[in-house]
């Protein structure tokens, strides 16, 4: 909101309070951000490395480029439209953008008959594959904070990707449980030092185990629920530890099993998720238990929500054939990039664009200062949602959408505006129903 933007007192930093952080999907909305005119931002209220790093990356605007040559925005838009109009197998991906940017990207993709995917959808797909195959029992962050008396963290510490998870959602005592107690168990993963520090007031158990065999540990736990005395060891964790944890799960009032699927290594990591989901389901025969599948950087959850409501199917979908065709294997952007002739890559949250095969024509929308392995055919610098313009982003738990506000004005266009302009420059077609 432009009206929210404080005017600059001469020579003094402007302080923005209660800023929404759009980056990792935890939905922190309590940031204090200092603005050093003209456009330098510094997060003052938290040590979160994601927030600190991302908010501090606000170089001044630079002009768009076509074939490496600086041009006005209108010219870059025309050039992009010309390249896209001739595309045979276009890919619209990256999709690091807010809800409005996603709407514009998906509309453009529909117009082009393109394949759509998000840069970070590997982790999301490990979760969605299981949701689509078997369903699950899940929960949200405020339920975790207020009701959970036993948190089981499966696999590598998700705080590596979601730094304030424990501080904001686990360290406070549960408000809606009697007694208001909580304990935390790390299974097949060790807490980071920062996590240990945040949880210093809570009982924490670490069962290190083999992270690559987190699924085995989940299966052993599930098997032990009916009769913990018959527990077997798994993933390097002894039978006694599995039995004790199974017993603890059975007697918990509201257990939460959390995982960050992006951190699961190896092929078919969705099978790890499936076993965790199975453990949660089985635990509900005895008490209440719910999963917390984390995946959320760069608004991937929000972009997937928009895609699902727009087309009835999630990302990794081809819009080439009239009706959307979803195929999580075939339309994975990393695979499809090998055959795509033109790629529209959107990355407004981070100055990173992957390398594409040499004969691929790339139209890149990314922050100023983005380094490219190969100069793209068209580069249009864009603002960052929640920094340069108001933006809707979703939290990782898929339920809560937040609206970040614009903090600074670097004169950068938003993704939605650029993609709408490109779509408008294409030959028009009547929309079908």
């Amino acid at each position: 909101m432009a009206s929210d933007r404080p005017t600059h007192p001469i020579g003094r930093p402007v302080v923005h309070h209660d800023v929404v952080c759009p980056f990792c999907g935890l939905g922190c909305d309590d940031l204090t951000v200092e603005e050093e005119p003209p456009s330098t931002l510094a997060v003052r209220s938290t040590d979160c490395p994601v927030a600190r790093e991302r908010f501090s990356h606000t170089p001044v605007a630079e002009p768009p480029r076509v074939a490496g040559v600086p041009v006005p925005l209108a010219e870059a838009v025309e050039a992009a439209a010309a390249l896209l109009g001739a595309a045979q197998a276009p890919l619209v991906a990256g999709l690091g953008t807010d809800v409005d940017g996603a709407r514009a990207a998906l509309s453009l993709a529909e117009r082009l008959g393109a394949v759509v995917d998000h840069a970070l959808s590997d982790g999301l797909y490990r979760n969605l594959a299981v949701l689509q195959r078997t369903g699950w029992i899940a929960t949200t962050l405020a339920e975790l904070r207020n009701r959970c008396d036993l948190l089981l963290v499966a696999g590598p510490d998700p705080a590596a990707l979601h730094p304030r998870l424990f501080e904001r959602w686990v360290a406070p005592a549960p408000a809606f449980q009697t007694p208001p107690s909580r304990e935390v168990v790390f299974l097949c993963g060790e807490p980071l030092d920062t996590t240990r520090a945040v949880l210093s007031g809570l009982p924490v158990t670490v069962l290190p185990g083999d992270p690559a065999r987190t699924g085995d540990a989940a299966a052993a736990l599930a098997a032990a629920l009916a009769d913990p005395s018959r527990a077997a060891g798994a993933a390097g964790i002894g039978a006694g530890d599995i039995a004790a944890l199974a017993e603890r799960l059975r007697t918990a009032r509201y257990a939460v099993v959390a995982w960050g699927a992006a951190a699961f290594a190896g092929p078919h990591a969705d099978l790890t998720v499936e076993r965790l989901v199975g453990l949660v389901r089985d635990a509900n025969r005895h008490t209440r238990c719910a999963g917390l599948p984390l995946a959320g950087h760069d608004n991937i959850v929000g972009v997937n929500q928009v895609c699902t409501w727009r087309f009835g199917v999630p990302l990794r979908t081809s819009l080439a054939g009239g009706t959307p065709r979803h195929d999580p294997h075939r339309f994975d952007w990393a695979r499809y990039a090998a055959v795509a002739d033109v790629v529209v890559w959107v990355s407004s949250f981070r100055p990173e664009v992957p390398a594409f095969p040499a004969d691929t024509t790339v139209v890149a929308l990314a922050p100023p200062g983005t380094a490219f392995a190969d100069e793209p055919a068209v580069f249009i610098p864009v603002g960052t949602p929640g920094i340069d313009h108001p933006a809707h982003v979703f939290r990782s738990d898929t339920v809560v959408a937040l609206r970040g506000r614009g903090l600074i004005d670097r004169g950068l266009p938003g993704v939605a505006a650029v993609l709408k302009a490109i779509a408008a420059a294409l030959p028009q077609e009547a929309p079908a129903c």
Partner: protein
Amino acid sequence: MLTKLAGGRIYDPANGHDGAVGDLFLQDGRIVADPGPGAAPDEVHDLTGRVVMAGAIDIHSHIAGGKVNIARLLMAEEHRMAAQEPCGCVGLATPSTHATGCRYAQMGYTAAFEPAMLPSNARHAHLEMADIPLIDTGGYLVLGNDDLLLELLASGAGEEAVADYVGFMLNATRSLAVKAVNPGGINAFKYNQRRLDVDENGPFHAITPRRILTALAGAVQRLGIPHPLHLHGFNLGVPGNVEATLDSIVAVDGLRLHLTHVQFHAYGAEGDRKFSSAAARVAEAVNRRPNISVDVGQIMFGQTVTASADTMAQMGNAGLAHPKKWVMMDIECDAGCGVVPFRYRDKAFVNALQWAIGLELFLLIEDPWRIFLTTDHPNGAPFTSYPELIRLLMDRDHRLARMAELHPALPEHTILGSLTREYSLGEIATMTRAAPARILGLTDRGHLGPGAVADITVYTDRPDRHAMFETPDLVFKDGRLIVRDGVVVAFLQGRTHVVEPAYDPKIESWMARRFDERMGQRLTHFRIAEEEIRGGNGLVRHACQPGAF
């Protein structure tokens, strides 16, 4: 531009027209009075012999929000099959936003309301509803399992404080009405209770469902919200649940109450199969009490998916999932969601009786102003089955023929065969246009009088009512022709209907503390700004009248 719709048979129950021939004039998106013989319309549609009604309004259809997207994800099979079709969006249980708007408009509907918007998910629901083309939308806010309300009640707060809380929540989430889903039950499920009786204290907060129900009905009355409390009752789908349904009617003690998808709450536990129709008992209670309205939630046979905030009930149904997969979610200390795919089979006794119970309710409840045509989309069936449902109501022979194809034991368990009532066109117009607008407080919709928004549907009067209502000849939205002969000919954006009841803002400081301490979210960020709804364009506010109802 002046448009004349000439010589149609006008069914406009709100203004006393029951098929009399007349003209309508449209200007600037509204219906205007006959400008007199000197006026020269820019456009004239000759509607001689055609049936003209206001655009239809669906008061209960799950069209947007988190559970709808989960249902879409879970129903991957139907989308895979749809991708084989030339136009893959026909009749899906989980259509895209685009298909939702198109299919509604193609059936002559110009508004549909999402009846289960969770406070924490309201922003999502609004973002999604804005992507539904052609029709107006709005959401009913789910309250009654929110820990904050239960805390407030447990603290002994009076009616005024409860009304302030509800008033704040409706404003903050840009909602049109209040919905209660199994009040107290969803919260209890989070403490592993799989059942909660109406007079049983729930866990932790120690509040009874009856107390929650009466508190919310009272708050709605106090705030003067046009739509009565929209209640998804107790023990959904459980044989014998009629007792709790009748109890709810008594509990509100004369306050207005809307019982939604009442078919799922009109079950007895009698007979050889311990599952029986209690439609007659519900209908009798509704007929006697003008403060009660219902929508039916008719089931139709085929594959669909059930999506509800009622995790307690849905967990109980999860074993019946078809295909065998389901999702439950505990949500953000305000409710939950349960998504269970389901196939209603016409040869299954239980499903056949559900079908009959729904039709019995339609035919036994006398006042078409207080009963609404819904399938609780997609829970009973996709909304695209409305034309067939209308035919079942209007055509007894068709009804009997269909009944004969169902489970053979059905006839001895239902009085449906003996019910001779056939709905008239005027009654259909009441039930799907005039009455929904009136019960939602949409004063300039659902009728065809001067000043009304020019949302109009024109049909050819066919004996096959299914065919008639499936493919209207013309549909106007805001005075623009959007559908001709069942084909969408123009796209436009609908509007979002809301109420903004007055409340004492003192409640906000208590809530702001609670949000900081519990929800990990600032209250200021929870509140949805006007410019967030359709980019600031398209909010329609409806007046609240404290004490008027």
